[in-house]
């Protein structure tokens, strides 16, 4: 903020007043008043925290094959295994892995892929949208036509296409290590269009406003105008889309992994766990599928509800 050193008391006061401002803002007020938002936020927070601290929370490390005992396989939740006598909270899968631990670690991968993919889509989409809206002309036409063409394909199809190409060009020995990054790339690249469209629209509106004209008159560079003046004013719709995109990205990751083209079984995401679990649906080992599916449902639903709430809260017409 400022380069001049100031006494600690001033800083804390400033910080406090910032929190106070935030607490008194319309957004925070609306948040406190919405039970749906509060509950969804609590669920998301709980899931994110347990994913971040998975190595501490999880009773077992499902990624260390050396610790697994195959004889623990198919232990029902809460019951003792017939051979080893061990008990698992949510049961075990076919490899004798603790389902609870695999969910925590799977959640980690799902959330990481989701956040990273949205971040990629956001950076790409916002940049291209700003440029298209501000520069206009041929640049705009090229960017937006690419966006239109991409919109005619379902996002999941685009993701599969990118995944397939990326997998084809990575040497086989790196495929498993690269799978997560390829997944992020695929989902991120399939998702930038909506950011670009919204930002371009908002930029077109802002571009003709007086403060932008003023900035131009004093000779600021187009780059500075886009970044310092227009960007902050087009961010609120981006925030809404980003939240809803997060839910979609998590689902997209799960879909790809469920189809067997996503996270490898040695490093399972929630979608991979569901894919593995559905093989045991008919034979009665329901818990291998049920618990990961519930976790995915809770995560996607809460993020979506948060996104809905954010959209309504930021929409002045609904206030």
């Amino acid at each position: 903020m400022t380069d001049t050193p100031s006494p600690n008391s001033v800083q804390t006061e400033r910080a406090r007043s910032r929190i106070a401002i935030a607490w008194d803002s319309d957004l925070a007020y609306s948040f406190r008043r919405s039970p749906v938002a509060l509950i969804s936020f609590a669920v998301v927070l709980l899931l994110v925290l347990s994913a971040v601290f998975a190595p501490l929370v999880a009773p077992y490390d499902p990624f260390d094959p050396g610790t697994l005992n195959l004889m623990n396989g198919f232990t029902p939740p809460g019951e003792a295994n017939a051979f080893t006598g061990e008990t698992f909270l949510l049961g075990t899968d076919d490899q004798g892995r603790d389902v609870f631990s695999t969910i925590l670690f799977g959640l980690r991968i799902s959330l990481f892929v989701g956040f990273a993919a949205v971040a990629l889509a956001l950076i790409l989409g916002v940049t291209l949208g700003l440029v298209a809206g501000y520069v206009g002309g041929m640049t705009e036409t090229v960017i937006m036509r690419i966006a239109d063409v991409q919109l005619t394909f379902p996002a999941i199809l685009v993701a599969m296409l990118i995944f397939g190409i990326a997998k084809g060009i990575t040497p086989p020995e790196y495929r498993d290590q690269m799978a997560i990054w390829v997944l992020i790339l695929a989902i991120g690249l399939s998702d930038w269009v909506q950011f670009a469209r919204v930002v371009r629209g908002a930029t077109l509106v802002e571009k003709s406003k007086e403060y932008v004209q003023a900035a131009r008159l004093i000779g600021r560079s187009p780059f500075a105008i886009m970044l310092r003046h227009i960007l902050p004013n087009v961010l609120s719709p981006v925030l809404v889309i980003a939240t809803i995109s997060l839910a979609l990205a998590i689902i997209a990751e799960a879909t790809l992994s469920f189809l067997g083209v996503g996270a490898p079984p040695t490093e399972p995401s929630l979608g991979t766990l569901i894919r593995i679990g559905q093989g045991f649906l008919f034979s009665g080992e329901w818990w291998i599928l049920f618990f990961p599916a519930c976790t995915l449902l809770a995560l996607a639903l809460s993020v979506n509800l948060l996104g809905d709430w954010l959209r309504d809260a930021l929409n002045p017409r609904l206030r």
Partner: protein
Amino acid sequence: MTRLLLATALGIVIAVPASSETFRWASTTDPQTMDPHAVSSAPVLGFLNNVYEGLVRRGPDMTIEPSLATAWEPIGDGEGWRFTLREGVTFHDGADFTAEDVLFSYERAGSEESDVASWFAPVSEVIVVDDYTVDIMTTSPQPLFPDSIANWMMMDSGWAAANGAERPSRDTENFATRNVNGTGPFVLSDRQPDLQTVLTPFDGWWGEVEHNVTEAIFTPIQNSATAVAALLSGEVDMIEPVPVQDAERVDSNDGTRVIRGIESRVIMLGFAHDHEMLRNGEPNPFSDVRVRRAVAHAVNVPAILQTIMRGSAEPASQLVAAGTSGYSDTYGDRSAYDPDVARALLEEAGYANGFSFDFSCTNDRYLNDESVCQAIVGMLAQVGMEATLDAMPVSNYWPELREGNFDMYLLGWSPGTFDAEHPIRFLVHTAGERLGTWNFGGYSNPRIDELLPVMQSEIDPEARQAVMDEAAGIIQEDMVYVPLYVQPLLWGVREGVEVTQRPDNFLILRWVSIE
């Protein structure tokens, strides 16, 4: 009201077409080619047995019976075999089947491009005596030769020449990859790779029709749960295999049942014997027999059978299942599960701190293959061998193995001749043009190479068994492969469908009947 009645009557008429019996079946693997000489794998040969035929064929109990040849007899003192061909047989396109086609099929199947050339390793020459007599000359006496060629399918020379398919194409495509012209009881009427393949009866077939199928539709369903759902909902009449975990459910369900058997297929681990380096650039530990033995001791086969295979598979001690001819009782015990012995062996070999390597595995070929491989990764990790699992569909798998892109791999082998000589010929004999064609690891032992011709020509059962025992001993001592278990056969069929299950897991459509 009248209209409604009329509509109902029409509906009934449409719903019950006159004696049309469509048989739908599903399996995990699509036959990757329609060319009978291009790929020697059970899904391909099993499927093509319905459209192509050989000189001889196997009955329900695997015994050899006449097919396109009506009789055969040894020539002289074991110089070869004379086959008398069936007259009046035509190919699907109407061409006559004659001795020229046998000669052509020999040249094609025995060529370098063929995957089944090893069947003809002892053959020196094929002589057309007249239109319906063929002499197959061998370099040494081959008492089992007729048994070894049940899957050698006859192709029309004129058809192949006209369509530029005189040689099989293993990795690329040619006309014979998607088109079929055999003498068999069924004609290929639609082929969509990986989607569906439709067969209809061949009106001009020479044999007596026992089935009542008017159309047979094969659909590959890779996901086993989807396949079970398709069977339970009546979408398909048969699935193969039923996932072991679902066998009970399918059997107890009204309207479906499970046909069980023991397949002759042994699931085993293979190694890169002759590679200098692992894929990660480190020196290759698997060329050391102690490391291979350590693998054998580290894998807990009873645990795999107990959990993943749910008690429906048998442990294997050698490359063929007990009961196969030539099986060695002397070497009937497999290495016991003992991680301490495994660790000691690794230490002795200089790998006390373990090592990392790649483990290649299929995920759509054998029963629960990927689960088994994952479990093996865990078991090896417990003794310090850090395996990275590289699981892939079978269509990528064989090309990768042929390229040598593996350190250790999973393999299932079903002896096509029901004799222990078969896997030795394909998997253990020094790799060459006709022999050792599936010996991906490059194992080579001069004694085995010496023993193989003896197994093929020895007539005295006791003397032959002694040779088989010696070979089984060498293979076990050298731990060329680590045999794991014998795969169970589990077919799920709808009530009212009669099929015959053969231990080679081939579905023979001419034995299918639908109520």
